């Protein structure tokens, strides 16, 4: 994809982000604006900011890629990513805001009065943050490779270093207006091209001509495959073989991919995997560190609830578009199914469908800029969260120097990991982060808020059992050998057994250690659940 507009578009997005961040607040105000200055952030702005921080490269690129590859079964990804906020709204948002906690470790300390549990929660925050950063780096590498033709390694390194440096130097703090801008940018970058694409598809008729390779493509086969060409001949490359297709050649069909209308029917992935995915995404959102810190900006519990409701609407609207990209990708870019780079579908679709004319180029660069924004906003938010807990809870006093060291340490780990997981789908790695969050922090928050009987020992045991099992599963998936049969489903999608495990262990150990109940539990419960006018009555 060669468009002269792409690189300028990406540069403009980055500059706009930095400029709004640096100068948005530099405007001095006089006393007449005092009441404006002391007005807290409204639910709409806050919700857009949460959306901006939340919608990552996985949402922007990954969801479309998965829909292209697996069809209707993976619709649970976008549905779950959005519906996670429903669980957050119902169980967590308002009480957590009323508690006054800024981060998850803060909540542990407040509710269960245990410094040791705080340390454990910190470790999990850092792990989840890293796991979530990996796909962001991956997406960035992919975007840069696709857009500029450089190598994946270079892309990951370049962007990882840029984000780490800017967070370490304090260049990109999570400022509400910047993040809200990022949300609308991402939405525009997906929505405008897809309108043109849909119109184009309508005009061209529902059955486009057989797709051909637009450029000379080299495909490397890791596994034996069977390819059926347009004229009916069958190619059977073995593992390790490399095939080159000339530009203009028709794209062959891969045997393992379902080309018929079956692609639109559910059932390929199995019931267990589907339920696992639903549990992980529904319950994992509430354990994401960079999302929870944003709730602190709400003035009170009911504002937190309103914000979550708006987030649900905004995020739900956003996820319509990646799905459409996936579907249109089947029509216009089936060669990605052959090359395996399905995550690039969003980036390639405009030029593939609309040709390399001015419109295609402009829309292509808009999408690339949006992908870059997605990557920048969520990874800088995540890295800031990770560096924040590292500097206050691990290095000690949270000074500026500690924060910089933490940001660098926090940035290097996911860069190294991202270089080693290039074979995995972006959304699948994100799914693992959700599974770990759902099996550690979800039970902690839900039981901590709604059950008086939770003790520190119970919470620690539950986090270690559930979260530990989920982490083990993740490590086994990323580092271990391929697993046979049902074991691969149990390990690849662990949430359906790790979440109940965490809940059960937490409840049982809490019941067994009832004497450890903190004496302050009634006070804390009152603080969490008393309606705002009572809790915040001011004279």
């Amino acid at each position: 994809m060669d468009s002269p507009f792409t690189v300028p578009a990406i540069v403009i997005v980055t500059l706009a982000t930095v400029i709004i961040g640096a100068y948005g607040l530099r405007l001095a105000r006089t006393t007449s604006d005092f009441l404006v200055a002391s007005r807290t952030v409204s639910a709409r702005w806050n919700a857009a900011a949460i959306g901006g921080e939340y919608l990552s490269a996985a949402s922007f690129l990954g969801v479309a890629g998965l829909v292209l590859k697996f069809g209707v079964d993976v619709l649970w990804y976008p549905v779950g990513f959005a519906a996670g906020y429903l669980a957050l709204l119902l169980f967590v948002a308002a009480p957590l805001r009323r508690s006054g906690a800024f981060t998850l470790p803060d909540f542990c300390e407040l509710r269960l009065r245990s410094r040791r549990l705080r340390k454990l929660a910190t470790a999990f925050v850092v792990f989840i943050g890293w796991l979530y950063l990996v796909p962001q780096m991956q997406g960035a590498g992919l975007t840069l490779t696709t857009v500029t033709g450089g190598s994946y390694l270079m892309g990951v390194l370049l962007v990882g270093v840029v984000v780490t440096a800017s967070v370490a130097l304090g260049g990109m703090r999570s400022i509400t207006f910047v993040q809200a801008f990022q949300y609308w940018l991402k939405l525009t970058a997906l929505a405008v091209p897809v309108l043109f694409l849909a119109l184009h598809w309508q005009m061209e008729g529902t059955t486009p001509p057989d797709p051909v390779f637009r450029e000379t493509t080299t495909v490397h086969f890791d596994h034996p495959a069977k390819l059926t060409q347009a004229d009916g001949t069958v190619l059977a490359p073995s593992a390790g073989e490399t095939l080159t297709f000339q530009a203009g050649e028709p794209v062959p069909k891969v045997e393992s991919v379902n080309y018929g209308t079956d692609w639109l029917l559910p059932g390929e992935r199995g019931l267990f995997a589907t339920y696992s995915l639903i549990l992980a995404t529904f319950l994992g959102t509430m354990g994401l560190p960079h999302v929870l810190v944003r709730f602190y900006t709400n003035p009170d519990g009911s504002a937190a609830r309103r914000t979550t409701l708006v987030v649900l609407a905004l995020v739900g609207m956003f996820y319509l578009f990646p799905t459409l990209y996936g579907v249109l990708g089947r029509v216009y870019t089936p060669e990605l199914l052959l090359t395996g780079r399905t995550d690039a579908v969003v980036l390639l679709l405009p030029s593939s469908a609309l040709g390399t004319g001015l419109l295609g180029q402009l829309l292509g660069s808009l999408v690339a800029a949006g992908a870059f924004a997605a990557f920048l906003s969520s990874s800088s938010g995540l890295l800031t969260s990770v560096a924040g807990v590292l500097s206050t809870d691990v290095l000690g006093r949270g000074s500026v120097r500690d924060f910089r060291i933490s940001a660098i340490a926090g940035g290097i780990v996911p860069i190294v990991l991202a270089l080693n997981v290039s074979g995995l789908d972006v959304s699948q790695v994100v799914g693992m982060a959700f599974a770990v969050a759902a099996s550690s922090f979800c039970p902690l928050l839900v039981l901590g808020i709604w059950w008086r009987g939770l003790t520190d020992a119970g919470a620690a045991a539950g986090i270690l059992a559930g979260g530990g099992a989920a982490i083990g599963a993740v490590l086994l998936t990323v580092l271990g050998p391929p697993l046979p049969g049902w074991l691969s489903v149990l390990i690849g999608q662990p949430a359906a057994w790790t979440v109940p495990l965490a809940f059960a262990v937490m409840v049982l150990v809490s019941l067994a250690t009832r004497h450890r109940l903190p004496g302050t539990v009634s006070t804390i419960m009152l603080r969490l659940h008393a309606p705002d006018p009572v809790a915040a009555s001011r004279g």
Partner: protein
Amino acid sequence: MPAPLAVAALIGAFAVAIYAVMRLRQRKAVATPAQRATYGVLHTAGLAVEPLRHGLTQATAAKSVKHLRTLVGADGLALLTGQDVLAFDGGGAHHRAQLAEAAAKSIATGRSTVLGLDDLPCDQIDCTIRGAIIAPLHSVPAAVAATAAEPPSPGLVQATLETARWVSTQLALHELDSSRERLAQAELRALRAQISPHFIYNALGAIASFVRTDPDRARDLILEFAEFTRYSFRSHGEFTTLAEELRSIDRYLTLEKARFGERLKVRLRIAPEVLPVVLPFLCVQPLVENAVRHGLSRKPGAGTVSIEASDAGAECHITVEDDGVGMDPAVLMSTAPAEDGQHVGLSNVDDRLRAVFGDEFGLVVETALGAGTKVSMRVPKFHPGVVAK
């Protein structure tokens, strides 16, 4: 799991077990019987004292009494107040009433007593209790009672008395802790919001000057003044949010502008993310008051006060700056209050911030004569026990 992994795990577990056994054996060989005895006594004493450091109640007594009995080596041990038995462990529980009665006397006189068989009449045939020792505690009205299966030996008496004395000391320490806490709270209350009489006088004077020329403005100012005093004189809650504090500062500045007119300029840079931050009540306003009074009122021409609040991860940074006459750092450093109560406001805020958040969160003042003053503070976004009310 593949076989090599399982084998490796087994070998690992085996190695750990061997290591643990070796360590344990080594420790036994190193410790002499005397050392072991010291360790045993101190360990038990430590276990017994931990609950008692939260005061003497039924719950803490119940947790501690078991360890105390081990320490004394008696058949049964009770912790009693003058009225009833807080906790009992071991044999002789049916003598509770007799022990409580004897303890009441012993607490009243402050002398320990030894009870013989005659003092403990019993209708149970299999009762093994032959005597008891009651030792009153000196720091609180309570006593330790030990029962014995034979007439109390001098050794048991000594052990009981020493244990009682030791428990007494620990409870006194608890008293010290809690009174220290109460003192800090009382200090905090005394330190709260000392609104300056100068300000009330000046504000009313400024309002009076508008009553004839601009009655509407005078009315607005009086309403602002009323709201301002309502916030500043409120009696409940130690904490407030930055948004509330800024609202009160706004009223204060409106009143000061009525007095100074165009001479007072205000610049604001507030990050909206930090407005919900909870901080001690009236801890920014005195800084603004200070900036207006010392930065402006003794200087010819206009002056500017800048208020800035920025988001810094888990903290919020607040600075109040003026371009006035500044202060001599030496005067500021001296602990004696200046003749006109100049920086009492600053040290008050400093003390309260330190008392609430800890010593590393004190005020930072940058100033020199003729160079203006900049006061900055850091407020953590979360601190256990800090909540807006």
